[in-house]
């Protein structure tokens, strides 16, 4: 009886563990991203920055592997047939975020963008709003798998931090282009960095919008 019970839920437990690891990796990479950005603004490219970038890359590669594994398991064993497509869309959406963390850090590492001191606090705030949006999203995705009634408790925070990110981004762009002593090419480079960091919160909001529909479907 006991072994039967173990076999019955073994597959479910394995899959649950993979989804938990996948979400933990996104959460961890958001913290690493924040540390790496702050480190870059204080010290530029150094050993610590490269080490943080490597850690994010490792997590990104691991999450790609986990996502493929989860997708294969869901289809091979025809698990949650009704919500399978929603779950896959959710995992692919959240996986994009960790890709963005990695690509933004590579952008800094390759382009070695110079950031004026007066812009640094606003860039930090922009990074902060982006990672807070991601953290709220990760909490809502966890709730979707464990307790769908709680999904909405976190979703509204994603929208809040995305809006805050938009405000910071607009303010930052005005400051960039108000600087008459800077070259246009540098201004454009700074504006692009601003847009790229802000897009993390935008993608989080897109995933959150889909998630709210999935939660309604599950609840009905």
């Amino acid at each position: 009886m006991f072994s039967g019970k173990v076999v019955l839920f073994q597959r479910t437990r394995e899959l649950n563990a993979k989804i938990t690891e996948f979400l933990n990796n996104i959460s961890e990479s958001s913290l690493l991203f924040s540390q790496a950005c702050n480190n870059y603004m204080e010290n530029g490219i150094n050993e610590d920055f490269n080490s943080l970038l490597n850690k994010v890359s490792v997590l990104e590669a691991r999450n790609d592997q986990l996502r493929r594994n989860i997708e294969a398991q869901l289809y091979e064993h025809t698990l949650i047939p009704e919500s399978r497509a929603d779950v896959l869309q959710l995992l692919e959406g959240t996986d994009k975020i960790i890709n963005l963390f990695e690509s933004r850090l590579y952008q800094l590492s390759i382009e070695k963008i110079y950031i004026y001191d007066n812009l640094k606090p606003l860039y930090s705030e922009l990074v902060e709003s982006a990672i807070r949006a991601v953290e709220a999203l990760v909490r809502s995705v966890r709730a979707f798998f464990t307790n769908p009634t709680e999904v909405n408790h976190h979703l509204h925070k994603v929208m809040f931090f995305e809006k805050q990110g938009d405000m910071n981004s607009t303010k930052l762009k005005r400051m960039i282009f108000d600087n008459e002593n800077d070259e246009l090419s540098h201004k454009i480079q700074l504006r692009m960095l601003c847009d790229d960091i802000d897009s993390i919160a935008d993608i989080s909001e897109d995933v959150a919008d889909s998630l709210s529909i999935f939660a309604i479907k599950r609840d009905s």
Partner: protein
Amino acid sequence: MQAEFLFFLSGGLLLGFISGANYMGNIFGTAVGTKMLSFRSAAIICSVFIIFGAVIGGGGTSATIGKLGMISTMSGAFVATVAAFAAIFIITRTGIPVSSTGAIVGGIIGWNLFTGRAVDFSVFTQIILSWIASPFISCIFAMVLMLAVRKFLHKVSVPILYQDTFVRIALILTGAFAAYSLGANNIGNIVGVFIPSLHITSPEFFGFLYLSPEGELFLLGGIAIAFGIFMYSHKVVNTIGRGIYELSPISAWVVVMAHSLVMFLFASQSLHSFLVSHGLPAIPLVPISSSEAVIGAVIGIALLKKGRGLQTRPLGRIAVGWLVCPVFAIVISYALMCLLSIKVEA
């Protein structure tokens, strides 16, 4: 067992074979259609439990069907079952779902009309009233069950992956119960008409297991249904349940559960005796339509969502099928009797 008996019984076995596909569709159609269960697992569970239900609990409704026309010859029973089989076969070809219960009642009435014997009006009324009542009862059961499940899931939050496993287990257990109830309730349609003219001796299985003549008949009918499930139901199973309303795995479970409770209510001799012994109004032991019970339950689920997404056009076709099938079976049965000019013993 005589060859002549087996020949006449073949009408019932054919009816069992063709009904098997519909039974499987009604019980496991939504579970297989939503990919919660494989066809093979569902077919094995369905066959085994239908046979159990037929052999263990098939007596009550078979007696009612036997009383309806009191067909006293094997040849008469043969004609009634062949007419029911032909009616189902022809109407199913047009894509309209039919009820084996309606078909056999039509077959018996056709025989009665030809032989000039009166139909037992009290049994006939009982059957008709049960047919009208059963989808309504099933609808109410489904609504109550669905509300209870929703309330439970809101109170006890079950993680989605574990919920998936629980729903699969529930679908298997309820499907087994549904198959048992269906076997007990509907075996009367398949072989019930042969009971009044049954003159065979009880064989002994494996040196220790004895079956009454009726039990033996129910076993053969159950095996015919099982053959129908394996050989004929694959297509039905994959199309049923999506025609009138899109069901989720949980609502699919509710439909199967409501359906099996209704089938059980109209088949359980123990429940019948219990109600009678306590002076309560007894539920008649009548073979009801499995499709009617399923559709009643599906409508119940749809009503909880204010009927949104409910396809009304197929419902009209289904209702036409329920009315046309018995009439068609009466005509075929009467025509067959005229054609064969069977002399019925007084």
